[in-house]
C-alpha cells in the first residue's frame, strides 16, 4: 500500500502540472486506475516481502515453528562465523567468477555476428540465442545430464572413437555445473551486447579500415571500447544470476558442489530454519551487490582509459 501512496502523492500535489496536461487533453489523475493494479501487486507482493526478509533474518530460531518471537543478530553471527558457510559462499562467488569470462568469450563473437548479419535467417538465429531462456531450467539441466553423465553421450562418443578408455568425470563437479551455467546464462550476455553493437555505425569501421587500420586494430581500438557498456551490463547480469542459480548446481553438482542458494533452500524447506536461511540469503545478496559495485567502479576507470 505504501508504494501506491508515494507514487500517487506527486500527481495530487502537482496541480499545475495536472492542469497543463488536462489542457492537452491527456487525463492524468483520471487514468491513475490503469497503473493501480500493477502498483498494488508490486508494492504488496514484492516490496513488502523484501522488507519482510530483513525482519525475518533478525528473528531467533525456534523448535516446532519456522521462527520465534523477539529479535536477535545471532543469525548473522552464525552465518559469518561459520567456516563451512563461508566456504560455500566463497565457492558460489568463484563459480560466478569462472562463468562470466567464459560467457563473454563465447557470447561476444555471436553477438557481433547477430548484430551485423543481414541473413534472412537472422530471426531464427535470434531464437537460437533465446532458446535456453525459453526452455525450462529443469529441462535444460536434464539435457546436460544426458550429455555429461558417466555413461552419457559425450563419454560414449569419446570411448567409441578410442580417444579415452575410461569415462571422464564431467559432472557432479564444478566442471559440469559451470558448463550448464554458461549455457543457461549465455543469452543474458549476448542480448545486451547485440543491442550495443547494433548501435555502432558500421561505416565507422569501414572508415578506420580504409585509413589503413588492421582488422585487429579496428576491433581493439574502436569496436571493443564502444561495446563496453554492453560488456559491463552482460557480465554483471550473468554474475548476479550465477550467484542465485539453484536448479543447475543441484542437478549437475550432485552432493559435491554446494552453492549458497542450495544451502538456503535446504535451510528453508528441509530444516525449517527460516531466520538462518533469510540471513544467509541476505549475506549472499550483499556480497553480490558489493562485487557488482566494485566491478562497475574498476571497469569504469578502465573504460575511461580506453577512450
Amino acid at each position, binding site marked *: 500500500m505504501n508504494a501506491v501512496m508515494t507514487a500517487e502523492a506527486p500527481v495530487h500535489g502537482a496541480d499545475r502540472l495536472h492542469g497543463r496536461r488536462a489542457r492537452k487533453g491527456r487525463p492524468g489523475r483520471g487514468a491513475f486506475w490503469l497503473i493501480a493494479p500493477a502498483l498494488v501487486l508490486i508494492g504488496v507482493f514484492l516490496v513488502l516481502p523484501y522488507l519482510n526478509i530483513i525482519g525475518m533474518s533478525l528473528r531467533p530460531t525456534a523448535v516446532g515453528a*519456522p521462527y520465534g518471537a523477539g529479535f536477535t543478530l545471532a543469525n548473522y553471527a552464525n552465518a559469518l562465523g561459520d567456516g563451512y558457510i563461508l566456504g560455500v559462499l566463497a565457492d558460489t562467488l568463484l563459480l560466478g567468477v569462472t562463468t562470466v569470462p567464459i560467457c563473454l568469450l563465447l557470447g561476444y563473437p555471436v553477438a557481433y555476428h547477430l548484430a551485423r548479419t543481414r541473413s534472412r535467417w537472422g530471426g531464427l538465429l535470434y531464437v537460437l540465442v533465446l532458446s535456453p531462456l525459453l526452455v525450462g531450467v*529443469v529441462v535444460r539441466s536434464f539435457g546436460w545430464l544426458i550429455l555429461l553423465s558417466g555413461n552419457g553421450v559425450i563419454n560414449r562418443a569419446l570411448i567409441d572413437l578410442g580417444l579415452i578408455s575410461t569415462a571422464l568425470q564431467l559432472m557432479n563437479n564444478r566442471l559440469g555445473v559451470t558448463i550448464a551455467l554458461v549455457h543457461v546464462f549465455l543469452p543474458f550476455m549476448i542480448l545486451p551486447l547485440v543491442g550495443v553493437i547494433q548501435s555502432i555505425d558500421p561505416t565507422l569501421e569501414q572508415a578506420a579500415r580504409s585509413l589503413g587500420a588492421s582488422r585487429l586494430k579496428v576491433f581493439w581500438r574502436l569496436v571493443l571500447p564502444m561495446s563496453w557498456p554492453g560488456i559491463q551490463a552482460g557480465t554483471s547480469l550473468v554474475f548476479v544470476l550465477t550467484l542465485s542459480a539453484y536448479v543447475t548446481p543441484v542437478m549437475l553438482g550432485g552432493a559435491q558442489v554446494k552453492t549458497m542458494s542450495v544451502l538456503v533452500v535446504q535451510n528453508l524447506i528441509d530444516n525449517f530454519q527460516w531466520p538462518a536461511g533469510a540471513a544467509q540469503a541476505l549475506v549472499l545478496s550483499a556480497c553480490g551487490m558489493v562485487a557488482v559495485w566494485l566491478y562497475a567502479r574498476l571497469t569504469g576507470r578502465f573504460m575511461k582509459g580506453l577512450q
Partner: protein
Amino acid sequence: MTMKRKPLAARAADAIGLAYVGAVYVFLLLPIAVIVLMSLNAGEFLTFPPQGISLRWFGALFANEAFMRAIGTSLQVAAIATVCSSVIGVAGALYVVRHATRLREGLRMMLMLPLMLPEILTAIALLFFLYASGIGTRTMFGLVVGHVLVTLPYVFTNVASALYNQDGTLEQAARSLGASPWRAFVRVTLPLIKPGIITGALFAFVISFDLFNMSLLLKGIGMTTLPLQLFDYLRWDFDPTAAAVSTVSIVVTLVAVICVDRTVGLRSLRFG
C-alpha cells in the same frame, strides 16, 4: 564482397570466425536436441546412439498419472497467470506510455523490478510474507501471485514498446470525434498494439509454464507443476519418460515461438 577479392588471410579469418560462432550455436542447441532425440529412443535406457525410433516413451508418459496431472496443473497456473499479468501489464503500459509524465521512468523501473531481482530470492521473500500475512500456501493464490510477478515485466515491456511505436494521435482523433475513452481504446488502440499483447502474453505463458524456483517454494499440497514433477522424477529415475515429458515442454515453447513469428516476427521480441 567488393570489387577486389579479399586476401587469403582475411578469408581464412572470416571462416574461422564463422566456425566459432557456429560452434557456439551448436552448444546452445545441443542439450535441447539431445532430449528430443532421446525421447524417440526405442531402447530401455537413455543411451546414445538411440536404439531405433519409437513413440513408446510418449505412451509411457500418457500412462503416467503424476506427469499428466502435473501438465494439467502447469497449464492451469500458466493460463491464470498469463491472463492476470496481461490485464495488469497492458493497463500499466498504457498509463506509463500515455499518461505518466515525471514519474514515467520510475514507474517503468518498478514494473520491471521482478525481472531484475533474483527469482529465488523473490520466492523466499514471498514465502515468508504469505506465512506472516496469514495467506499461507494452502490455496493456489500465492503460487499464482508469484507467477504473475515474474511474468508481468514481459507483458509490460512488449506492450510498452508497441505503444511507443505509435504516437497516440489516432486515439486523440477518435476521442475528438466523440468516441468514449473505452471505445477509443477498444476500436483504435487495442488493434494497433495487439501484436505486442500477443507476444507478451505468449512469452508470459512460456515463462510461467517453465518456472521452477517460485513453484518450488510456494506450491501447496497437490500443486505439483511439470518442472517440479520432472525434477522429482529425475532424482530416482533416469529413463526416456523424462525425455518424453521434456519434449512436450519443448513443443509447448516451440508452438508459442511459431505463433510469435507468424503474428509479429521474431525480431520484435522484447526480453527485458
